[in-house]
Every structure is written in C-alpha cells, then in structure tokens.
C-alpha cells in the first residue's frame, strides 16, 4: 500500500505529504490505527483529508495509507432492516466490537459476507441481456424482493452461466459474455461510489402523489413520487415527528431514514418503534422496508457530511430495481454545518454566514438525485426517489443560507410554525406560508382516483383560511361584534377546518394515517356546512349563535372518527347536514 506522512492535524482535518499518486475523494487510512478518511483537496504532493473518526492522539509524522478506492458503499441483499453510521458501518457490529461507546479504527463490512441468500434466476442461459436487466431475485424481507441487475459496466451481452440456490453475496451467481467477447463474473454484491449518481434511462415529470396519510400534506401541500420537499422549522415545531410520520405511513415501498447530526435518543426511538409498528399499506412491520442511517450530533462531523450521500446512493440502488423509495434526511442543516466546519479548517474564503460558497451547488446536486425515472434495462420499469429534507434554521429565521438554498431546488415547502406548536396544533405546518408546486401535476390523478371536485374543494377551503387571517386582524382591533354573520360563518368554518381537519395526532395510530378518500369526505362535510349556511344567512331573523348550537355541528367535529371502511356514512352525514341546515332556514322563514 502506498503511503504518505502527516504534516498537520486540526480537528477532523489532516494534511499529509508524499501523496502525489492520490486521487480526489480517494479513501485513505490515517495512522496505524487505520482511521478512515477521504481526500478533499490536493496541492502538489500535499493532500487535505477529512477524517471520519476522532483524531485525538494523531500527530505529524504518522503514516497515511492510500486505498485506491473512492468512498463507496456495499450494495446487495441485507441492506433492509439495517442501521448504519454515516459511512455504512452497521451499528450492531460496532457494538459487538467496541461495546456501548463507539471507539476508533473499527473496520466492519456494510453487508454480511457469510449469510447465504436464496437466489432465483429470472433469465436463462443463452439469453441476451443489456445493462440494468434483472437477472434474478432474492427475497430480502417478506416485503421486498431484491433484484440482481446487470451492472452498468456491461452494455450488452449474453448469459453464459446462471446459477440457482443458496449463495453468499460474494459468490459468483451469473457469468455474462459481453458483445466484445469479454466475460464478466457477477456477484450479488456491488460497490458504488457515494458521490456519483447511479445511472438511469430517462427522467420523467412526477405526476403520482406520494400518499402520506397526513391531511395537511396530502390535501393542501402534496408531494409527488420522485419529488423533493423540505421542512424548515425552529426547534420544538415538530420536524422530527413529521419526518417520522412520513417514514411510517407514506406509501413508498422502501424508506431510507437518515438521522444526520441529530439526537441519539430519536434514532433509538425509531429503532424500537419500527419493528413493532405495522405498515398501513401492507400490514407488515415497518422495519422490513426501512434502512436507517444514524450519525448523531456527537458522532464525528465528517461522517455526518458523508451520511446523506450514503443514504441517497442506497435509495437510488432500490430505485433502479423498480421500487418507489422515500428518503428522509433529518436534518440537512447539520450536513451544511459539517461542510462549513471542513471549509473553515481548509481556510477557504467563506460565503454567507461562514458557509462555503459552494453550499448552493452541493445542495442542488443532492436534491437533483431525487426523481421519477425509467430504469436501465429492457423492461422499461419505473422507479423513484422522493427526497424530503428537514432544515433547522437558526432562530427559525428562514432567510438564512441553508433554507434559502434548499428552497431554490425543492418544490414543496412545509413551513413549520412555532406559534402553532405553542398552541399544540400539530402538525404545525403553516397553511398560509407553505406551498407545493406539484398540485397541478397531481390534479389529474386526484380527479380520477379520489373525487371529481377534490381540487375545487381544496381551493375553496384554502381560500377561507386566507380570509380568516384577515378577519382575525379586524377582530383584534374592533372585536367580534363588529363582524357580519357572513364573516362569522367564515371564522366558524375555518376554525372547523383547522381543528377538525388539519389538526392530527401523530401519536394516535388511527388518527395519524387518513386515506385520501376519507380526507376528501371530512373536508367535504365541513364545506357543505359552509355552503348550506351561506344560502340561508341573508334571511331575516338569522341568528348566528343559533346556528352554532345545532346538534349537527357536534357531528361534524366527530366526522374524523368514522372508519375509512365505512365511507358511505359520510354520504349520510352530508345529507344530514344539508337537511339540518335547510330545516333551520325554513323555520326562519316561517317565523
């Protein structure tokens, strides 16, 4: 192994000389403890290295070994249900080696090399294949069949030999002769550099929603499969609870959850809860479709930088098999801070607030790896990666660089609001400032799959909330009495939208997930009340306080308790609402 010598150590940054043969982003082993590091700058024969582990006790003169490989991850069966650190070391293996505290220089493989998997071929000897074609399958968990694909290094070829049965990931399962006559041995394990996006055939405009079961998201600010969204918010506003809710209930087939510079106990919570919770779409434990990456805030900062790339590479790998993957990164601000720390130590010229000038381009590169694609291979299968990043703006100030750079590249903005959180209105997504640019793309889908008037309903109810905010200001100045009955009705309806529709308890298993049709009906009932009441409001003798006292109003409050298996009850409820309010109106006339 080639080696150089350290000349400087400053926190996670190490500078070494004698590195003329080093490549950018090459992985190196620092000192005889073999700490993992990555080259991030080259200057003649000097290399700057970011070290993924604690550098205490390392000093000038210590060796640095080149490995010749760029920072890569293991891809193959066994990824699901795993929990990794930022550089794909399984945390349970680290525990086995070092105990409850993470020490340095632990080298453990990302995937188990000894476990045997049952490989079932889907191609036969002599068949023509091209890059990305599926050669066989392994049942990775009860939910997911792991598809073994022709690597993109082989453009076209013929299957020379294909096996069936029990193999480890390092055993050869297929032999392919490419069009130039070269033979390739294919194993279930492949390595892929985390900073290089995996190839695909072509990208498409996302137009299928990622259903999350969260009413404020699905109905008001939806995200599409293959889309990119961000959740900025001050601490305590519920970023993590929202992310975890998405991870639990969204209808993606694979979840990659990255705890990037966040709390240790939160990851423990996910680890304990996910094997217990059932996926509402399949009824299987959530863990069976989940991969966790935990690089908590006190773990080395450079590995935090790598963790989101490790995560998205794994996400892309499952996408290439034809799955819909959702990736949650909590929080990208911590990733940006890791960039800032390394940049500061490299003494680069800082941009805004000390962040490096390339923060914007790095952020964009990351979110661009999301998308709805046609995979490589002749079967034209489709897959997607949806990327959802939490952002933790200092002081909740959205004008800071990380939020601004993220907003430029994500199309969904779920703005969390501290004021709503103080009132314990959750999810604390502000309905006035948030937006989704996918609404138009998804309109067709909704009209076909949910209801013809879904879009209209959505627009009308959002309109009411908009008017509410204006009316509230008037109330604050002159009091409730100054409002007309019509305006009081708007306030009453929007209160109902807020409390009976938007408010959702993430800790109540039934309330936390609302299927789309049910969402439609809850909102429909509220809006029917509004429309019917609007009709009679001009009549003589109309008393607003009498309307509110109607027993049917209590039924609207309880509308969300109706099970989604009994949607016909909503139709009855709607009829009841119309009848009750019309009766109320005709009595007025009689009087």
């Amino acid at each position: 192994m080639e080696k150089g010598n350290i000349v400087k150590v400053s926190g996670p940054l190490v500078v070494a000389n004698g590195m003329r043969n080093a490549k950018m982003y090459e992985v190196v082993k620092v000192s005889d403890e073999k700490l993992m590091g990555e080259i991030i700058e080259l200057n003649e024969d000097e290399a700057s290295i970011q070290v993924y582990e604690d550098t205490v006790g390392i000093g000038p003169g210590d060796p640095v070994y080149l490995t010749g490989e760029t920072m890569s991850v293991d891809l193959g069966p066994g990824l699901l249900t795993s929990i990794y650190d930022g550089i794909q070391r399984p945390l349970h293996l680290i525990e086995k080696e070092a105990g409850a505290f993470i020490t340095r220089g632990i080298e453990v493989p990302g995937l188990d090399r000894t476990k045997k998997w049952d490989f079932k071929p889907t191609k036969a000897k002599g068949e023509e294949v091209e890059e990305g074609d599926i050669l066989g399958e392994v049942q990775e968990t009860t939910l997911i069949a792991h598809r073994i694909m022709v690597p993109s290094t082989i453009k076209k070829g013929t299957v020379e030999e294909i096996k069936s049965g029990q193999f480890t990931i390092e055993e050869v399962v297929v032999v392919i002769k490419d069009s130039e006559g070269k033979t390739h041995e294919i194993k279930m394990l492949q390595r892929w550099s985390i900073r290089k996006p995996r190839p695909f055939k072509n990208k498409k405009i996302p137009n299928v929603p990622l259903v999350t079961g969260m009413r404020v998201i699905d109905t008001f600010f939806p995200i599409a499969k293959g889309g990119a969204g961000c959740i900025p918010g001050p601490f305590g506003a519920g970023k993590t609870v929202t992310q975890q809710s998405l991870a639990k209930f969204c209808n993606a087939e694979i979840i990659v959850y990255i705890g990037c510079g966040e709390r240790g106990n939160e990851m423990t919570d996910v680890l304990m809860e996910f094997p217990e919770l059932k996926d509402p779409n399949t009824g299987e434990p959530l863990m069976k479709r989940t991969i966790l990456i935990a690089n908590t805030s006190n773990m080395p900062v450079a590995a935090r930088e790598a963790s989101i790339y490790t995560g998205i590479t794994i996400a892309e790998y499952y996408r290439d098999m034809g799955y819909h993957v959702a990736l949650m990164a909590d929080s990208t601000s911590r990733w940006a801070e890791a960039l800032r720390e390394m940049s500061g130590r490299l003494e680069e010229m800082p941009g805004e607030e000390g962040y490096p000038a390339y923060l914007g381009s790095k952020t964009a590169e990351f979110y661009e790896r999301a998308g709805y694609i046609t995979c490589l291979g002749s079967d034209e299968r489709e897959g997607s990666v949806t990327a959802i990043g939490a952002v933790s703006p200092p002081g909740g100030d959205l004008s800071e660089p990380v939020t601004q750079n993220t907003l430029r590249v994500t199309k969904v903005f779920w703005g969390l609001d501290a004021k709503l959180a103080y009132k314990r209105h959750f999810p604390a997504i502000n309905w006035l400032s948030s937006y989704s640019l996918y609404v138009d793309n998804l309109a067709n889908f909704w009209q076909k799959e949910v209801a013809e008037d879904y879009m209209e309903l959505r627009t009308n109810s959002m309109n009411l909330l908009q008017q509410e905010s204006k009316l509230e200001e008037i109330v604050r100045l002159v009091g409730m009495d100054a409002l007309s009955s019509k305006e009081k009705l708007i306030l009453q309806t929007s209160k109902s939208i807020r409390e009976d529709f938007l408010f959702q308890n993430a800790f109540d298993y039934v309330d936390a997930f609302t299927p789309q049709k049910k969402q439609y009906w809850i909102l429909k009932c509220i809006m029917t009340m509004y429309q019917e009441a609007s009709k009679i409001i001009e009549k003589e003798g109309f008393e607003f306080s009498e309307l509110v006292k109607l027993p049917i109003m209590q039924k609207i409050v309880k509308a969300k308790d109706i099970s989604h298996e009994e949607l016909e009850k909503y139709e009855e409820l709607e009829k009841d609402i119309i009848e009750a309010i019309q009766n109320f109106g005709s009595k007025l006339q009689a009087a």
Partner: protein
Amino acid sequence: MQKEYKTLKSIAGPLILVEGVEGIKYEELVEVITPEGEKRMGKVLEANKDTALVQMFESPQGLKTEETKAKFLGKPLEIGVSEDMLGRVFSGSGKPIDGGPDIIPEKKLNINGAPINPYSRDFPNDFIQTGISSIDCLTTLVRGQKLPIFSGAGLPHSRVAAQIARQAKVRGGTGDFAVVFAAMGVTFEESEYFINEFKKTGAINRSVIFANTAADPVVERIATPRIALTTAEYLAFEKGMHVLVILTDLTNYCEALREVSAARKEVPGRRGYPGYLYTDLATLYERAGRIKGKKGSITQIPILTMPEDDITHPIPDLTGYITEGQIVLSRDLQREGIYPPINVLPSLSRLKDKGIGEGKTREDHAGVMNQLFAAYAQGKEVKELAVILGEAALGEDDLKFLKFAEEFEKEFVSQDEYKDRDIIDDTLDIAWKLLAILPRHELKRIKEEYIKQYLPKQEK
C-alpha cells in the same frame, strides 16, 4: 515519551505557539512551566510539522516567551475517577478544593469520552417526579433525558434547579442516585448557594461538585463540563447509579469557546460564535442517556441564561436543537411574583409521552396535559383581547377562559419553593379543579370517560 521545549514563539490570549517541536499529537496534554516554576495545563489545538498551537486551560498571566517551558505529556487530558469523589468539591479542572485529601483514582478516563452507539441506547421512559407541578404535568422529565432551563439574568434558575435536585425521585423506584454539579463561570455566591443547599439536605454526600467560578480562568470552563460528565458516566455506567447532572451556566461556557475561536482567528458563525458550536455542544448534551443492559442513567439539566431573554440567540437556539425539550423561565411571571416562573407554552419535553400515562402516572395525564396547554393558550389570547377591548366586550365562554388562565398561573404554576407536590394526589388534582372552570363542551382534548371520572361535580 515526554518532551520539553523552551521555544515559545507567541502568546495570544489563551493560545501559545511553540516552535521546533517534533512528534506532537493532536489534543495532547501540555504542561506549561512559568519562569517561577509554576505549572499550568493546556492542550494541543493544532499539530503541525514543527509547530504546535497550544490552548491553555489556565490563565496565561505572567508567561514569557522566553524562559517558559512547554512539556508535552503524550496523552490527552484525563481525570482520575473513583467512588470516593462523592461528597467532595473540586476545581473546574478537577483538583480537590475542599481541603480534603487527593483522590486515589480507580481509573483514569479521557475527558472527551466517546459517543454512545445509538444502537446500544435504551429509550428513556421512567417518570421522574420533581414535585414541581408545571414540570411534572406539562414538561415531564424522564430518566436519561437532557432538559435544559432557559433563563435570563436575575431569574431564579438556581432555585428551580436546586429544588429539582432536592425533590427529584422516581415513584416507587429504588436504586442509587447521585448528583454531579458543574459550575462554569458563575459567581462565588451562586456556586456557594448550591453547595449549601446540598449540605442542608444532606445531598452533599451523594454529590460531586466541580466549581469554576467567575474568578477562575475562562478557558478552564471548556474542560469543566467534560470532567463532570466523565465522572457522571463512570458513576452511571460503571457503578450503576442514577446520576442527575446540573451544568450552570452554559452561556459562560460558550463565551469561553468564542474567546478561543477568536484568538485562533477562525471564520465566525452567528454573533461571533464558532461555526462548530452546535457540534461542540452536542458532544456535551448527548452524553446523557441510558444504555441497554446497564443499571445507571444520566439525566442532564443544563442551565443557560439567554442574553436579553432572546430565545433565538445562538446559545439557546442550538441547545434547543440538541436537547429533548426546554423549560423556559419568564420575566413577566417573575414580576407577578410567581415562583417558579415557568412559561409553559414555549416549554416542552420531547420525551413526555414515554413517561406518562397508565402505570407511570395516571391514565388521564396526557389528555389533561393537552387540555391545559390548549386552554391556557386560548386564555392568554383572550387576555390580550381584553386589554384592547375591555372585559365587558368578552363573551361568556371567553370570560371563563380568562379566569382559567389567571387561576392556572396562581394555583398551578405557582408553588412554594419547599413544596413537594405529588403528581397524582396534588398536581393532577389541582389541574382538574382548574379545568372545572372551563365550559364543559370545550374539553375536547380529554376522553369522555376520564372527564366523567375525574371532573369535580359542579356544586349548585
């Protein structure tokens, strides 16, 4: 191998540059010997091929570039730990200052510790009763949590923290407990207040105290919390004790970090604090927790004073992003004479759901908590409205909310400094009495069966 150099090139604030050195390791401990022969400690902040940048833990006063010697000890800063530390008082760098004998260490530990593997953590879920209603009911503390107190200059955070330390217990629980207290840059009086409080109740025998007062060197503060937490980890995970760690005042700690960062001419982040402040604070706070298969636990209560009571200031802001909630003290309540002046609306415990409910406290706890929050928030809004429009303009229901908010502050939040309220017999009982003020149909957040069972019957 220990090397000694007399080649100091420059001294700038807490930083010393030593030239012509060889084989220096990062974070290595350095002993700087003054011309008078006095020894002061420092550590290597940057190791270059032939120079070393050393950060002093003690004052650089009296150091000269000539005649001063720097001795590199070849190991990082360690603290010798032993169970005999209980009942003792140490300086911010871990030397006994109570006149007692030196500690014979059972073990020497690196003060930086190592991160707990998230896979090895056990989730905190044992309810800790502090005897303070607003904490127990609304921002519940659980074993292994880190829950800071966000305070301001002149607010009684020390009294609140001392009350928690005095009263904290696990209902029906047993097990050894201990308190590790670290003072960073607080006044002598404040530090003495805690020591005396511990002495009064006899808790001193179960406490380890590290005191870096305002008169002690600024940079020593950077080591103090780490020394305290290393001791706590030893007591918790090797001796099986339930350790409550109180750190005060984190604002002074962060200012010491800023001083070192400025002396190094680093690119500053917000308000001049270093860009790595978040990571640095995380390496302190994340040392709280429980570990699977180990008996002990570390519960942290860091105290910080928010400059200008500004919760968006980088110190409370970054802290809030790491800790599992916060207890916010309010100057308004303090002015109204309410003790403890806990502003419950921005206060939060992220782990509360795991520590409350049937079997832990009582089945109606969660509902009561949510209802109190919602009703108090609404009551406060009505109060604002009343200021503009006058109480006469308020409706019947609004007046009830207004009354509720006032009574809530007076009866529920406010309590005597020496009153230890039981969660079931006192706190929840008071809560239900207050909820009875509200219109019955507004109790939307509590399950009907609990309302029937617990709501006091109206006297007619």
